[in-house]
């Protein structure tokens, strides 16, 4: 029966080519536009470290003076000061912890013919690599001992390794960074978490850090900090932070393997704030937050406003396309009142007629879905040509591919319901009489 309905549907659709084309086009445009923006939204709001992000937390505290403090309303600071960062790091109250900040270093290739160039860098402590599950292509991360010893060691990305060493194992080699020699101990494998959750002050997406060096060492050799510096009071000014200034410029991440540990850590942050207040360093009552990765991304509204606005508009667009298709299907189905009357008179039940018309709507939806998919591919290609930092990430994954077809099919069946129901209400005798 189903095949017969498909056959009927194709015949009927072939009879009014313009109307059919119009319906398919409307569905395709609506699906294409909404799937393009939905895919971008899906990619941009994804989990940067699936399976791991639930146990990674970002502690926030509030070391500012009491000026401008509204209890319960003022959020704590987004980053930590050098003093607090070091205190929390040394307290070692979490399963793993790392203190870090962004920077950039001048890379001076040794014997190669490359000119010196600037590379984004991360100054961090050893906990970074095991905590974030960073895979290594060659070598390994540095350890806590190297942090303590201010060792001149570096980990580089595979991209930088390709550029400098042609992709060969470069561990043990010397790399000159901002005028100081470093020994390469590891080359990171395929690792590019998006969004760049651990430091959103630089680009949120597609951040490409080539060099990782111990935080302690980076401060010794005077490497440049690059990122947001937020100061309070009258102590801060300028672009470069200093260790004892009232400025926050570091990110502190912890791994807490169970909810109980997270609760305990939160209490530790409160206790720490109280202790610092007693010491006179903090002036505000404890003002702390402990968010995991996804909560942190959500709090920072990391998905660009324009992307969300585009998504809203695209779904409005799909709605108009659907209303349009309902109208066209209504016209099409009602025009065939005569034919449907004959089928009713020959014994087809209302239900059978309804099924037949919905199959026809489904065929339109499938064809529209294929068209929409092609348009979505074109749309995503256009997005990738944009200069935005996230542009290169806009690719359709299998889940979104399936979603496209389900959306197209669902949309066209929804659009077919009313016209099919209306067409089934036709009294067969009346139609036969007017033939």
């Amino acid at each position: 029966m189903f095949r017969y309905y498909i056959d009927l549907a194709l015949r009927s659709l072939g009879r009014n080519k313009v109307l059919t084309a119009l319906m398919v086009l409307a569905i395709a445009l609506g699906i294409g536009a909404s799937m393009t923006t939905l895919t971008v939204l899906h990619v941009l709001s994804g989990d940067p470290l699936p399976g791991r992000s639930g146990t990674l937390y970002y502690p926030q505290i509030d070391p500012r003076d009491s000026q401008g403090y509204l209890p319960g309303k003022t959020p704590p600071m987004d980053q930590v000061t050098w003093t607090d960062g070091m205190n929390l790091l040394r307290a070692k109250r979490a399963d793993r912890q790392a203190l870090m900040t962004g920077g950039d270093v001048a890379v001076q290739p040794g014997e190669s013919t490359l000119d010196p160039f600037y590379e984004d860098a991360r100054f961090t402590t050893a906990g970074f690599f095991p905590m974030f599950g960073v895979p290594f292509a060659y070598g390994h991360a540095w350890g806590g001992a190297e942090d303590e010893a201010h060792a001149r060691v570096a980990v580089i990305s595979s991209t930088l390794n390709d550029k400098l060493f042609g992709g060969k194992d470069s561990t043990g080699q010397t790399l000159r960074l901002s005028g100081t020699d470093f020994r390469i101990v590891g080359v990171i494998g395929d690792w590019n978490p998006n969004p760049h959750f651990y430091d959103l002050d630089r680009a949120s997406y597609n951040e490409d850090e080539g060099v990782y060096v111990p935080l302690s060492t980076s401060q010794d050799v005077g490497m440049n900090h690059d990122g947001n510096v937020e100061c309070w009071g009258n102590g801060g000014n300028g672009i470069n932070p200093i260790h004892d200034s009232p400025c926050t410029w570091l990110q502190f991440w912890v791994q807490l393997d169970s909810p109980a540990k997270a609760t305990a850590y939160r209490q530790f942050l409160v206790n720490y704030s109280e202790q610092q207040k007693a010491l006179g360093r903090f002036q505000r009552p404890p003002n702390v937050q402990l968010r995991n990765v996804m909560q942190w991304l959500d709090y920072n509204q990391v998905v660009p406003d324009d992307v969300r606005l585009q998504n809203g508009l695209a779904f409005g667009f799909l709605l108009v396309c659907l209303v349009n298709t309902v109208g066209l299907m209504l016209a099409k189905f009602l025009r065939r009142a005569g034919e449907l009357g004959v089928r009713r008179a020959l014994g087809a039940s209302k239900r059978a007629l309804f099924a037949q018309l919905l199959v026809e709507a489904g065929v339109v939806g499938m064809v529209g879905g294929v068209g929409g998919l092609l348009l979505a591919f074109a749309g995503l290609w256009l997005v990738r040509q944009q200069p935005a930092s996230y542009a290169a990430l806009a690719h359709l994954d299998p889940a979104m591919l399936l979603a496209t077809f389900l959306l197209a099919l669902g949309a066209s069946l929804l659009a077919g319901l009313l016209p099919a129901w209306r067409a089934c209400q036709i009294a067969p005798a009346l139609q036969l009489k007017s033939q």
Partner: protein
Amino acid sequence: MNIQIRPILVALRRHKAGTLLIALQIALTLAIVCNALFIIHQRLANLSEASGVDEADVFVVANYWADVNRSTEQVDAQVRADLAALRQLPAVLDATPASGYPLRGGGWDNFVTKTPDQVKPTTDAAVYTGDEHFIDTLGLKLVAGRNFRPDEVMVMGTQQAITPPTAIVSKALAERLFPGGDALGKSFYAMGTTPSTIIGIVDPLHRQGVDSSSNSYAGQALIWPLRADDSKGIYYIVRAKPGQLAAAMREAPKALFAQSRMRIIDPKDGVQDYATIRHKVFDSDRGMAILMGIICAVLLAITAAGIVGLTSFWVGQRRRQIGVRRALGARQRDILAYFLTENFLISVAGVALGTVLAIVFNLWTMTRFAMAPMSMAYVGVGVLVLLLLGQGAVLAPALRASRVPPVEATRGS
């Protein structure tokens, strides 16, 4: 021409579903189109924001030092030598050191207060640094006061916090701080313990950032007489002699490398003219405007196609009825007028609902995306466009209807 509205309404009641669908489609289209027009207009307005810079002749060199382990004195000596070399170039009119430049897309800004112990900052200002050549190099218009003297220019090394006792501010900042218009000679605090006295006022001077968060501080900037001798690098803003921009952009990096090889100037975007800077910083605004334009066009086309489709169906359905009317004496233009009026009535209902939806949509974007309230002019334009679109779309089927011959009345369909 005598148009009977009642018969049309009676006929429409027999096509409730179709009528409602067209009206709904017009309403939704209106809601989206006028909001999209509003967004397009806003973004296009951004594109033409004045920077205050003589954009035709100015370019920026992003100069990074390859060796960061130099003292501030060493860096300063190099910066002075570089500037002297740049200013001597035949195609160059002037040059200044800087820590940032207008339309850079973000950078240094400080809260500004009128007293040192003020709890809530009065406002916020983009911070520019430069020497006594800054104003002339950028081509800023000094509307009051004077330029910096060479002896007022101070040196700011890496990780140093220096508040110079003098500053030149943009007119927008001057008026925000001292609404009386007497800002010259007054002092302010910008996150430092010592005040800066306003010695000059320029107008206009754009901020470094263009994102929505700096909208409420639009055009508020201050210039401090500082050579920011950071161990990482420095911007050189250079003004070419009129018509010699290309030559100056070629010469400048060569002259700098002749001074010292220990620097990194990105071959790709280390030297940028203002056309490029402006193009880059407003890329997303332009992209959004184009996208909205495409959405509007496609949406209007789809709505028009929908109206054509449904009206064609109605005309086909009513051929006999039209024939009867023609046989009873209705002229072709009466039939035409009938369908045009029918569409007009549906469209009016659609735009009425659409106006409500448009405002709701705007309120949603205001709360979710901090957008400005939309002027009703956009709704007006949208209503006009959709009414014309409806009449245009219905014209072809209506003409076909008007050509139905009276003899159709006698044919059993």
